[in-house]
């Protein structure tokens, strides 16, 4: 049996190492909103002849789009992000690139959102997040009604859940300025799915702990929790790994459309496994016994 509870301070430290820089990044840079939320026109351009990034930038500046953000995409394509422009402007932009760079240009994908739609999406996203939060809170209070101290267990579950969410959002904030990763409606989709999966993991672990308390595994709460976590270890790791296999495959092989969704799932599910095994139960122990620093061998009960 692994002493996962005894090492709790280490786990809290590891989480802090990710979360604190993440929160700083969030505070300083925030998230980089995609076209869905901020309005604008985003397009992927395919050039028949290989062109340089600087050429595309220069040409866009020449025709007056000096605020355009240009990024190289896969296969020699370029991703261009502009404030919202009309369909006529898109056509003339394409034509001027074609003549200026002397190559055929295809708009292989285009996404254009006006401020009115973007504002609506932002609002609805907030409502969705609040609805999800209420739903999950109701579920948690129902799922933990049989627990010895429902409020305490519920709070620990929520803290562990927030931990997972903060990690996902923080990583996206860091990736935003480091790699230009934007958040879009699919990112929100991924985050809400992560909430579902994450709560589920925590509930399974807590259920085991409760069962072991009833069976009277040990008088020491720390031992009971550790025993419960160890019993869930196989299930949590295996389920998580099975899901991660699929998500990693999707991340590496799937197309660009679902990148933010799959990346949010990848980070969220991985963090969810970690927090359900290394954070959630440990928080219960901290609440019961404080941040005990004494090194304690977990004894094998029964």
């Amino acid at each position, binding site marked *: 049996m692994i002493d996962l509870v005894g090492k709790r301070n280490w786990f809290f430290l590891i989480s802090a190492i990710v979360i604190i820089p993440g929160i700083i990044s969030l505070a300083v840079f925030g998230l980089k909103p995609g076209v869905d939320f901020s309005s604008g026109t985003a397009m992927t351009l395919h050039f028949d002849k290989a062109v340089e990034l600087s050429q595309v930038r220069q040409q866009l500046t020449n025709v007056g789009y000096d605020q355009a953000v240009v990024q190289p995409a896969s296969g020699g394509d370029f991703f261009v992000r502009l404030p919202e422009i009309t369909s006529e402007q898109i056509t003339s932009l394409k034509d001027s690139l074609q003549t200026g760079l002397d190559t055929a240009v295809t708009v292989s994908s285009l996404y254009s959102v006006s401020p009115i*739609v973007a504002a609506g999406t932002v609002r609805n996203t907030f409502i969705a997040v609040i609805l999800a939060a209420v739903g999950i809170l109701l579920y948690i209070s129902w799922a933990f009604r049989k627990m010895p101290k429902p409020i305490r267990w519920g709070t620990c579950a929520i803290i562990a859940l927030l931990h997972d969410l903060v990690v996902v959002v923080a990583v996206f904030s860091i990736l935003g300025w480091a790699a230009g990763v934007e958040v879009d*409606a699919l990112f929100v989709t991924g985050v809400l*799915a992560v909430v579902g999966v994450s709560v589920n993991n925590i509930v399974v672990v807590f259920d085991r702990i409760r069962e072991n308390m009833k069976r009277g595994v040990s008088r020491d709460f720390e031992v009971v929790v550790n025993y419960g976590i160890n019993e869930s270890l196989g299930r949590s790791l295996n389920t998580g790994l*099975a899901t991660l296999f699929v998500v990693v495959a999707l991340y590496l092989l*799937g197309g660009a459309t679902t990148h933010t969704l799959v990346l949010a799932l990848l980070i969220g599910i991985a963090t969810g496994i970690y927090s359900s095994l290394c954070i959630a139960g440990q928080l219960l122990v901290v609440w019961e016994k404080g941040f005990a620093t004494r090194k304690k061998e977990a004894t094998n009960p029964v």
Partner: protein
Amino acid sequence: MKRGSTPLLIFILVLFGFCLWVIWPGNGIFGRNEFTLGLDLKGGSHLVYQIDLSKKDPAQSDADVIEAVKQKIERRVNAYGVTEPIIQTINNERGSFVLVQLPGVTDVDQAIKLIGQTAELDFREEVLDANGNPVKDADGNPEWVVAKAKGSDGQERELTGKYLKPNAQVILESQTNKPEVAFEWNSEGAVLFEQITQRNLQKPLGIFLDNQLISAPTVQAVIKEKGVITGLNLEEARTLAIQLNSGSLDVPLTLVERRDIGATLGEDSLKKSLEAGIIGAAMVIIFMIAYYRFSGLMACLALIVYVVLNLAIFKLIPVVLTLPGIAGFLVSVGMGVDGNVLVAERLKEELRRGRTLGAAIEEGFRQSWSAILDANVTVIIACVVLYWLGNTFGNFLVLGFAVTLFIGTVLSMFTQVVVTRTFLRTIVGLGMVKSPAAYGVSK
């Protein structure tokens, strides 16, 4: 064999066989013979127009105006020759919108114009000064006024496109081979047109579309029923003919969202996602068998049944498959393992405690059931919220994910509890695999 599991096993096998037949390309019931692919997989254009209700005729209700816009857009899109378009209206606190999905459309610019243009056609006369000479503006262009005449009931009426029969068509002028739009007036229009051509003989008559002059032919003779509009290229003529037949929109539309996906990009994404899915699923199967041995194999068989059932449901409902939708489905496959893992872990424990195999299976399922049910509730909550989010703003990508993850989650409970258990019971009943080691228990 345990009593009661034989009929279940037969039921599962029949259902599986049926679903396997259904998902085969070309097979299906209710005419659902192919999977329904979303725009991101087929390629095409997704357009959202805002309906400007402030410009409506106050006598009409909002709902009527919106419905009329939708019907006219439907007529335009159908005449344009798009297969399986989707036209929906969305009403929310920000206004009224109409969402148009055009799969496979290549000339999106043309389609945008065709759908969104008000297309109000009218006929105008030159404004004459006191001497009967045409009044010119600063640039030397004639000034125009909408031609009016007495209708059949004696009332003054403006001659506009609403008196046209919906049978306008593009013809090629025999001499010049230039495209023209041939139109026909209804009886009221004919009454008006006769008077107007009569008084404008040998004078130009301006034909305006949305206040833009298209052409100004000189009236050669008094005409009642028919006419042609010249001065257009073939594409413009085609668009105009469709618009005249659909009728002009009562209120202006503004394009507020546009998403184009190239057909090759869609195809490429589909291929990539399928590859990812197959590789991911293969890894799950290898892992499950390596770790849980025989019960892992059973779980994988259940997983295959699950995948086939799920795909059959997708085809029969039909669920519109999108890239996020495929991702949602694959995630549900990964999570579908969850219940089987819970059961297999319990099974191992019960065997360790020295129960017989049959008793361990029953106990393993009994113990894991509440966890399986609980575990899926949170995912279902997330799906319901996402469905709402995707629906309110017509985001088909978010919607696709929510729908497939929901179906996948609900169905996985069924396969975990019914299919895996039946398989295991059958095996035990047949006394085939007895060694606890086969269930991952090391002695």
